[in-house]
């Protein structure tokens, strides 16, 4: 049986075979054409030789890579142009190659001298070619070439002729290019050419192809920008085009209308169906307002943003944009805004039962209602109610810029802006607050409006709250009760979100400054002052109390009558706050008897700084021991000075650090046998090593943490750094067995850089440097040993020069940071599963960092391992020039569980490892430690973290 089956199967198999054999083989009509990709194009490297081919398949990638390697320089440019010209002459190439070549030529050539010959060739292509695409590109390229600097009117004329001669074509692409070309080349002075160009353009605004219409409108825009006066009919046709079927046409016409209206705002245009006339700018404004209801989002967005850019619109039209008549069942109905206003003015408070208080009132005549928008009616209202946030944002911007020029409009738009606080998208809410803040100068808030605004203080978003604080700090409140509500909401805000403390303080300071009289009336309530009972003395640790004090004290500056109202303990607290938060509490003129004991004397800190530095520099001859003592005292004096006077703090730090370095230098050089560390005791050598390391660190910090120094100061720091590197080199060559090649290179690099710097700035080197330069230049091969031999005597002969007087101490900047959150004494424990991550919110302010991209968050774990985290770029925002705020979440992780919560240190550092320090780092003495290349900006803040083992069986 099986055999039979097998046989049958075999037979079948054979049969199939034969069928295949015999069957008429269909002729292979189409073979799969596999295009092998020529090697991946490396855009960075383009060689001219790759253009030397006629195979279009290879040519195109070469051209594309040429495109991406633009712009070219000098020689290669000429070479490339020649190659491209060769290609242009080759008529056998397919049109797409020629098109690309033409486009490239227009891109590469920028000077007139080059353009001339190319231009002629390009024009010849126009005669030869049959391809429409090529022709279109010819016009485009020729237009670009004729604009090369300096522009050649003769060439431009030729291009205009060429373009005009193709204007009758039926192919849209040629038409579009031609219109573009004549638009950009249209001469500014009136004449035959100009008028014929204008005629052509106007004619094509009603072309059958939408792309041509768009091009015509755009070209008219360009012409207009050149100062050519557009005829009135252009404006009319643009108005007509606003109801075009195609959005690109509508968008182009929209711009044209705006531009046309701006160029001739006062021209009168007739209102259809009446004898009246209106100003052109008003007419244009109402036209654009109509487009806010367009069917397309992009056009709507454009219209909404254009509204803001118009100026000189009549009051009537402007205010109509915020007008929307409401009705219900043919009866006029007051809007919620009007109701709120009416309720306020009638002096009634909400009964809480407002059912039917929005009932419609008077009857409306059917004929008097116009539902469809005419003119500018309600345009902004519609923009704000739009479905898409792009439109809403644009409308907010428009309102902002319109309101900035018109106080009345600002006040009217207030209600709508407040409404936007309730938008569903945070971006829009934020924008609404920002707009409100910008127009704060124009508006006076009513109590009910204020209440709505203050409601947003409960928002969970930090940005919204903070911008609201800024707004409240700038706005003017009308009544005492408004100020009271405002203060109480801010205090409520503080309770809810303690992290807002600083922002609220700032806000209250401004509120106090802006409303002294109102605050005066509130003093007794706020501070709980009773006419004849003594209250409990509040604690100065109480956050709310501090807020109130900031408000009252700032108001007291302008309203001295507040001062007698204050109780004795309040005055004491004032002295305390003056000390702790001087930037928030102003100086008050207190009477004789009430003056706090510690009088504010005019400290002459600047003189002190000068004198201290004088002391250092005037003691070159003293003994080593004496010098060291002086250095020590001056250093500690300066550090104290930095604490006392914030204005001089950077300069004082700078001087202190420099003095510290001098001290270290003296210490090292005075150590006996420092060049033969092997002979030192273990303790001594350890001290020496740490001194050297310290010195390196300090000079590094001096070099990178301070900015805005005068060239002389800069030079002296660099000098110090070079000297330190020299010392390090000598120390390493003598003291250790390893190679000092890297250190030597590093030293030489720095020396050379300093040399260049000195020559650039025309400064003279000091004697040490001069000696070094001289000796080094005689050296044939800078080997570490040889260099060290040279340096060793020089280091000893020339002592470290004292820092010259700082030219402008108040201008020196020191990079610094302050971590606002997490708070250092926080008790919260961040728990996480071992192996996963936990996010810790970090809020900090960083000032005067030279390069924000070097900022890192340093996380130090209890096992002494550290991580540097690069904060995302967009989490770093510029608050004021030189000051950044970092709001981010730091991810902390641990692989194993810990038995209890431990401290993890968070700090901010500058990581400069990729800069000049790189070579030093490679051969650094302390290799494992990253401290050689980072600058600590702030003391680490400890956070309690507790990784726990993962629970089983989830």
């Amino acid at each position, binding site marked *: 049986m099986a055999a039979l089956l097998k046989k049958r199967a075999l037979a079948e198999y054979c049969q199939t075979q034969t069928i295949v054999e015999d069957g008429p083989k269909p002729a292979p009509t189409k073979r799969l054409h596999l295009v092998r990709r020529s090697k991946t194009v490396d855009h960075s490297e383009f060689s001219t030789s790759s253009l030397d081919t006629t195979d279009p398949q290879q040519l195109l990638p070469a051209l594309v890579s040429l495109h991406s390697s633009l712009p070219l320089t000098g020689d290669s440019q000429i070479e490339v142009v020649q190659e491209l010209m060769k290609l242009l002459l080759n008529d056998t190439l397919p049109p797409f190659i020629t098109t690309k070549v033409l486009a490239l030529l227009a891109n590469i050539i920028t000077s007139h001298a080059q353009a001339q010959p190319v231009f002629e060739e390009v024009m010849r292509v126009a005669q030869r070619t049959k391809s429409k695409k090529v022709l279109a590109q010819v016009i485009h390229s020729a237009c670009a070439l004729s604009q090369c600097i300096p522009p050649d009117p003769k060439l431009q004329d030729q291009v*205009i*002729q060429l373009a*005009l*001669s193709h*204007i*009758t074509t*039926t192919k849209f692409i040629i038409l579009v290019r031609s219109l573009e070309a004549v638009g950009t080349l249209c001469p500014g002075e009136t004449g035959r*050419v100009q*008028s*014929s*160009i204008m*005629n*052509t353009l*106007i*004619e*094509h605004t*009603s*072309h*059958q192809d939408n792309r041509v219409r768009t091009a015509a409108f755009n070209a008219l825009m360009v012409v207009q920008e050149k100062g050519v006066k557009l005829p009135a*009919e252009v404006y009319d046709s643009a108005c007509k085009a606003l109801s075009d*079927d195609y959005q690109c046409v509508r968008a182009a016409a929209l711009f044209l209308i705006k531009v046309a209206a701006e160029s001739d705002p006062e021209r009168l245009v007739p209102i259809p169906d009446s004898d009246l006339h209106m100003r052109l700018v008003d007419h244009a404004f109402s036209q654009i307002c109509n487009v806010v*209801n367009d*069917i397309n989002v992009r056009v709507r967005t454009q219209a909404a943003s254009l509204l803001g850019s118009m100026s000189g619109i009549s009051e009537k039209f402007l205010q109509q944009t915020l007008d*929307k008549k*409401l*009705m*219900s*069942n*043919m009866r006029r*109905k007051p*809007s*919620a*805004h009007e109701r709120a206003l009416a309720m306020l003015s009638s002096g009634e408070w909400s009964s*809480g*039962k*407002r*059912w039917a208080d929005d009932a419609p009132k008077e009857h409306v005549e*059917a004929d008097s209602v116009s*539902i*469809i928008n005419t003119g500018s009616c309600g345009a902004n209202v519609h923009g*704000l*109610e*739009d*479905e*898409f*946030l792009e439109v809403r944002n644009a409308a907010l911007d428009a309102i902002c810029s319109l309101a900035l020029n018109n106080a009345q409009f600002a006040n009217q738009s207030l209600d*709508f802006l407040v*409404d*936007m*606080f*309730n*938008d*569903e*998208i945070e971006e829009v809410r934020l924008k609404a607050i920002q707009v409100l803040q910008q127009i704060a100068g124009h508006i006076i808030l009513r109590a009910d409006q204020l209440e*709505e605004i203050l*409601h947003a203080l*409960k*928002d*969970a978003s930090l940005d919204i709250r903070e911008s609201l604080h800024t707004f409240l700090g700038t706005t003017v409140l009308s009544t005492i009760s408004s100020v009271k509500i405002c203060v109480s909401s801010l205090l409520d805000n503080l309770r*809810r979100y303690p992290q807002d403390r600083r922002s609220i303080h700032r806000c209250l300071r401004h509120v106090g400054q802006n409303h002294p009289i109102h605050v005066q009336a509130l003093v007794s309530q706020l501070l709980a002052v009773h006419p004849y009972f003594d209250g409990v003395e509040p604690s100065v640790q109480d956050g709310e109390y501090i807020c109130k004090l900031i408000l009252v004290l700032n108001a007291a500056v302008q309203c001295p009558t507040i001062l007698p109202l204050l109780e004795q303990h309040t005055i004491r607290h004032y002295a305390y706050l003056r000390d702790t938060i001087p930037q928030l509490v102003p100086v008050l003129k207190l009477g004789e008897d009430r003056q706090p004991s510690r009088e504010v004397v005019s400290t002459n800190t600047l003189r002190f700084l000068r004198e201290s530095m004088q002391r250092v520099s005037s003691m070159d001859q003293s003994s080593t021991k004496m010098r060291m003592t002086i250095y020590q005292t001056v250093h500690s004096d300066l550090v104290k000075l930095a604490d006392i006077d914030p204005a001089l703090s950077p300069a004082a730090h700078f001087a202190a650090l420099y003095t510290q370095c001098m001290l270290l230098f003296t210490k090292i050089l005075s150590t006996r046998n420092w060049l033969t560390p092997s002979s030192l005791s273990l303790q001594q050598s350890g001290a020496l090593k740490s001194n050297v390391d310290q010195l390196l660190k300090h000079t590094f910090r001096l070099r990178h943490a301070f900015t805005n120094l005068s060239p002389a100061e800069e030079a002296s720091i660099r000098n110090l750094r070079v000297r330190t590197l020299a010392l390090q080199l000598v120390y390493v060559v003598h003291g250790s067995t390893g190679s000092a090649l890297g250190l030597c290179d590093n030293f030489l690099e720095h020396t050379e850089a300093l040399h260049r710097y000195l020559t650039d700035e025309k400064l003279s080197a000091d004697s040490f440097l001069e000696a070094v330069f001289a000796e080094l230049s005689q050296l044939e091969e800078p080997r570490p040993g040889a260099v060290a031999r040279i340096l060793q005597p020089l280091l000893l002969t020339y002592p470290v020069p004292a820092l010259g007087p700082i030219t402008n101490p108040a201008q020196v900047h020191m990079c610094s940071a302050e971590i606002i959150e997490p708070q250092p004494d926080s008790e919260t424990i961040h728990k996480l599963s071992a192996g996963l991550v936990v996010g810790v919110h970090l809020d900090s302010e960083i000032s005067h960092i030279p390069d924000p991209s070097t900022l890192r968050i340093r996380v130090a774990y209890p096992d002494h391992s550290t991580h540097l985290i690069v904060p995302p770029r967009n989490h770093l925002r510029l608050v004021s020039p030189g000051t950044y705020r970092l709001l981010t979440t730091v991810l902390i992780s641990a692989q194993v569980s810990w038995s209890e919560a431990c401290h993890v240190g968070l700090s901010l550092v500058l990581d400069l490892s990729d800069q000049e320090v790189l070579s030093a780092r490679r051969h650094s003495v302390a290799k494992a430690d990253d401290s050689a290349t980072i600058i600590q900006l702030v003391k680490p803040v400890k956070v309690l973290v507790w990784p726990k083992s993962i629970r089983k069986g989830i």
Partner: protein
Amino acid sequence: MPEIKVTPLGAGQDVGRSCILVTTGGKNIMLDCGMHMGYNDDRRFPDFTYITDGPLTEFLDCVIISHFHLDHCGALPYMTEMVGYSGPIYMTQPTKALCPVLLEDMRKVAVERKGETNFFTSSMIKDCMKKVITVSLHETVQVDGDLEIKAYYAGHVLGAAMFHIRVGQQSLVYTGDYNMTPDRHLGAAWIDKCRPDLLISESTYATTIRDSKRCRERDFLKKVHDCVERGGKVLIPVFALGRVQELCILLDTYWDRMNLKVPVYFTMGLAETANKYYRMFITWTNQKIRQTFVHRNMFDFKHIKPFDKSYMDNPGPMVVFATPGMLHAGLSLAIFKKWAPNQNNMVIMPGYCVQGTVGHKILNGAKKIDFENRTSVEVNLSVEYMSFSAHADAKGIMQLVRHCEPKNVLLVHGENAKMDFLRQKIMQEFNINCYKPGNGETAHISVSSNMEVEVSLSLLKHTMAASSTSPALPPAPTTSGKAEEPPTKKQKILHGVLIMKNNSMKILGVNEAWGELGIVSHQLRFTERIEVEHIGPVQALTSSLHTLLSQKLGATQVQVVSEYQLSVADSVVINIQDDNDDPGKNILLSWTHQDEALGSKLLEIIKANFKK
């Protein structure tokens, strides 16, 4: 004159029981098939006997359902299963998903609570749904050879759509219910400039122009927030679908924004099922939800938890959404009874309440409510009313009309008196006809019939090219201001042959037409012989004739073919013969029938100059 016939079986000058019959181009279409919630008898369903007594399949080409509200789809199982219809039914996916949920709920209430008989069963709903074909937004569905439909987004509720229906040359748009202003979970209705012959629009708020939604929402949120902040409980009676999802999103995002911890509850059951579908059809919602759903689906509420009856007695503030919406029965009433005496609490009615319900009473300020079992409850809690309606207002309707540019408008789904106002406005502003037939009335809308004629491309191009060769070429000093209209705008005359073949019409150029029809062309030539006195060689006469004609007609028109022959405009031939007998010559002028004008002109010229 072709016409579109529209007969509302429901929703004509009325709200509720939407059902509109449309006849256009020989096709019968039913738009919506709703029931009236106000009646419990036969008037509840549309009168299908108007069409025919018996199965409807052969009288209807298709049924289109705009959205899942019962007044738009409630009668569907009755019609398909009990009256009999097996043709196609079209609706969008969300509508198909939610429709049976609502129908089943209604059936339960009708049969199990009210004990009605002769009502459709669950299996009927299922069978009915099997006949449904779903349509995606902006997808053109070919119902049969001539009839095609296309859905547009309508806002209103999840899955609501407007339908563009086209039969041959005639087209109409049915809006269903729509909303032109976006809300918390849905976008605004949108339609392109489709220029239909007829727009059938709802007109619920024909005489209302509404205030901004934000104000209203803010009021609502503030009230809720204030109440829970002073420790009160908030009850929001709602119906399970539609508005409640909007309110939930509103509260949920607000809770998120304001960092509130007060619990918000939501009754399980129908609403939970509905939420499941809302979560699924994210593409039908508004910009915000669509953009953020990768991060978090907004319908996965963060703060809203399911409600349990035992929570009612929990102390502390809370917010509860409870069904039904008019406080007439069920959970919401039970909660109301518990909470009403405490003045800290609040009840917010988010919609309209029918007379006789507890909701209606408290809205009118009743201080004490008596119940059937002789119990009564003091109403001390505050009562608020917030209307969140999702229909387009008058402004929205006008906007839609402006966007789609119809040739006629027909209003349905609104009160008669209100329609009058809107109708008058539409006729005024847009200068188009507007109709508002009542139930059972038929509106005949005559539409202009366009003939579709195919024009050969080469002919078209040729004509365009010929007419645009005139001005603007070189920047010559010609352009004499605004003398004539630009050539692109001018109407052009096109010469061609109209061929009617196989039920279609074509316009072709003459030569093409010969080829198409397989006809051999015949030429009709006129020949005129003029004897002229002329002494001298023939060549002299030819050249003098040439100069003469060149002067009169322009040099480009006249060509010398040989010394005896001239040709004018490539078609008129002039032969000059030496007459053997006379001293004069014969001029033979020959032209084709098409060049009659040119020929006779030439004849005149020659006769005038050379006549014997």
